[in-house]
């Protein structure tokens, strides 16, 4: 038992370096996309967002809803679902746990 633990402990640095070499290029691609797509909006973009929201509401009111293709509607639905999921991720961060409240 002690020998097995010793062997495992001796393998840890090589495992760590293998993990690092595996994840470095993937992290690089992640950063490549995240730096453009996932950044929070700069203060200059917020009025544009409000404008976009009002265009959306106006298009709902003018009945343009009937004109969108199913493909567009499904795509918009997926985007909306993704935005909702960020709320649940925020809730997990706020309650300090992934499943359930740790009371």
């Amino acid at each position: 038992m002690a020998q097995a633990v010793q062997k495992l402990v001796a393998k840890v640095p090589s495992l760590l370096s293998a993990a690092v070499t595996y994840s470095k290029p993937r992290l690089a691609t992640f950063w490549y996309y995240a730096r453009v797509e996932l950044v929070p909006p700069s203060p200059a973009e917020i009025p544009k967002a409000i404008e976009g929201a009002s265009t959306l509401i106006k298009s709902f009111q003018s009945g343009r809803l009937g004109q969108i293709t199913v493909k567009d509607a499904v795509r918009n639905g997926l985007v909306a679902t993704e935005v909702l999921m960020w709320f649940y991720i925020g809730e997990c961060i706020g309650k300090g746990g992934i499943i359930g409240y740790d009371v």
Partner: protein
Amino acid sequence: MVPPVAVSPLIKTARWSALLLGVLYGKQRFDYLKPIAEEEKRVEEAEKIKVEQERIIKQLAEANSESILK
């Protein structure tokens, strides 16, 4: 590699404000649930102790009672 796509500002603000709202909601609900759970735990402990004591009393009563069945 596909070049990164320019995300519309509406989606960006919606995402990050949803994240912020989620953090606040989670923290608020946690703070609301914590004292309730502690109260419940306290009540449950008291109940457990009471049941345990009753069991002990019953056992002692049985041991001390005299009957010809023993």
